């Protein structure tokens, strides 16, 4: 019998954990490298959100009356950050569908690496990407008049909440990308479900301005709750009712879609 099988014995648990972390870091780095190499990705993740800020601030903003001290720009920024974090998840779906189609995931899964690192690395890179985008938007927001009005710690809390929210949406997106598999279909359908959720919410306009039947939906769906919590963190006002409800929603979504994504990844062919 060939001795090749004996050269690499089953590693111990400590070693396996170290490899899992190392593999995730390697794949995070890989995703970020690809991101930096493709100008279109950068436009999509940075330029487009900045454009949204400017459009809403100067084009729609004048017509929307929100009745808060800082005016529309203060109202807008948490909403646009939430929307951007959610929309960034399309990148997760597209990248996974692409890697699946190209056989990259097959190669990884046939190697002695930690299998879960593919998803872990992807999500870590997406979180980093999201953070960069959010900071850029905040910078632009400051230039056009936005201010945090509730102190530094809640401000950091707002950024963390938006990244957590974005990552949760990424899990849903990962599932969608791995389930649909076809890159073009993912491009077409990967965002559609997010449009009603982000626009029929408190992200851009006060819910009170919507027709009654829409208000019921808008008031109770997770994007509104998350954005209200972010707004309270940024501007002041009651935080905890919104924060708890959003965290419960996010945990619920993770519990459902996390395992679904992992299962889709394991079965993906």
């Amino acid at each position, binding site marked *: *019998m*060939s001795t*090749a*099988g004996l*050269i*690499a014995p*089953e590693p111990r648990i400590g070693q396996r954990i170290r*490899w899992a972390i*190392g*593999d995730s870091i*390697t*794949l995070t*780095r*890989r995703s970020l*490298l*690809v991101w930096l*190499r*493709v100008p279109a990705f950068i436009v999509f993740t940075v330029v487009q959100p900045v454009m949204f800020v400017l459009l809403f601030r100067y084009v729609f903003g004048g017509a929307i009356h929100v009745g808060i001290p800082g005016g529309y720009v203060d109202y807008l920024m948490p909403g646009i950050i939430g929307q951007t974090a959610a929309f960034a998840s399309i990148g997760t779906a597209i990248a996974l569908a692409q890697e699946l*189609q*190209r*056989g*990259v995931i*097959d*190669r*990884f*899964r*046939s*190697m*002695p*690496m930690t299998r879960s690192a593919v998803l872990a690395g992807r999500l870590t890179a997406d979180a980093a990407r999201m953070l960069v985008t959010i900071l850029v938007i905040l910078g632009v927001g400051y230039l056009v008049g936005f201010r945090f009005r509730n102190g530094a710690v809640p401000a950091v809390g707002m950024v963390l909440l938006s990244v957590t929210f974005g990552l949760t949406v990424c899990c849903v997106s990962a599932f969608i990308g791995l389930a649909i598999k076809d890159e073009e279909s993912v491009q077409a359908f990967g965002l559609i479900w997010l449009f009603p959720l982000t626009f029929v919410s408190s992200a851009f306009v006060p819910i009170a301005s919507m027709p009654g039947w829409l208000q019921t939906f808008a008031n109770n769906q997770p994007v509104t709750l998350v954005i209200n919590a972010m707004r309270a963190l940024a501007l002041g006002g009651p935080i905890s009712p919104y924060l708890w409800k959003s965290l419960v929603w996010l945990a619920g979504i993770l519990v459902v879609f996390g395992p679904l994504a992992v299962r889709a990844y394991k079965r993906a*062919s």
Partner: protein
Amino acid sequence: MTHLVDEGRFVDMPEGTSAPAILVEGLRKSFGPVHALRGVDFTVPSGTVLGLLGPNGAGKTTVVRILTTLLEPDGGRAVIEGHDVVHAPAAVRRNIGLAGQATAIQPELTGRENLEIVGRLHHLSWPQSRQRAVDLLERFDIADAADRPAKTYSGGMQRRLDLAASLIGHPAVLFLDEPTTGLDPRSRLGMWDVIRELVSGGTTLLLTTQYLDEADELADQIVVIDHGLVIAAGSAEQLKDRVGGDLVEFTVPDRTRLADALAAVSGLSEGDPHVDQDAGRVTISVGVGGSEALVDAVRRLDGAGVATVGMSLRRPSLDDVFLALTGHGAEDESRGRGGRRRGRRRRGAERRADTT
């Protein structure tokens, strides 16, 4: 002797034989109503090359995916270097390399980056990964393009890069799924050289292909599958012997004379002549008749007043083997000439029953 494999399972080996690098027994796999594999068996001794040959949809990729732990079989078993693919997939992965049907490289990253990342995922240190990448880039003749994004590479270079990536872990058993599909003839020859060099280093190789000349060129043993079943196995020479000796081949440019031509040579042929109606090409099996049979054929056709072109005597190619075994050519499948092919396949199936 008995080998202990992972999870306390044993594989019995007859005394005096060394364990095969790949052992496949009764492998079955269905995708819903599609029976992709219907009981496939073969073994690959260490250090040899197996060519897995079959038309589109035969089940080649499905075999490779099961052996590389990407897919679980519905039935049967597969053992790589003593490790069962279902019960000890982690151990299998430490012994194999895979270059799949799609080139699994990241086009935005450079060739060097692609290899270094795979090295890191094999748990090599950074300096080791770098060195391994340099060595492989050199060996596969991509050193000059090492720092260009892989999407700027030619098809042949991308294939070589993909192959290089599959070798980073020094695999004992390598799987190449259609390594030369889509390459121009020169790149194909280059790829063959690379593969031959690899094999001379003692790597066990399973190679799938639709090209019969490729299997002929590279493989020690050939397994032909069609519709999820092994329809023939053996060396290229053994398979060719199955066709039954030499072939005389000629083309009748005037299609209306085809029937006359067939009538003229029918006495020469062992078994039915094979006719390609579209091309007007006739192939007859002449056993050990040799050049006498050729002269005889010329004389008879001349006597019947049928003009022919491209008259030749040749040894059977694997194409002929495929035709004899399946009733259709290796590359027919995708053209999908339904009725005629189905009828012929039935005959192929009968012949299969005789030969096995």
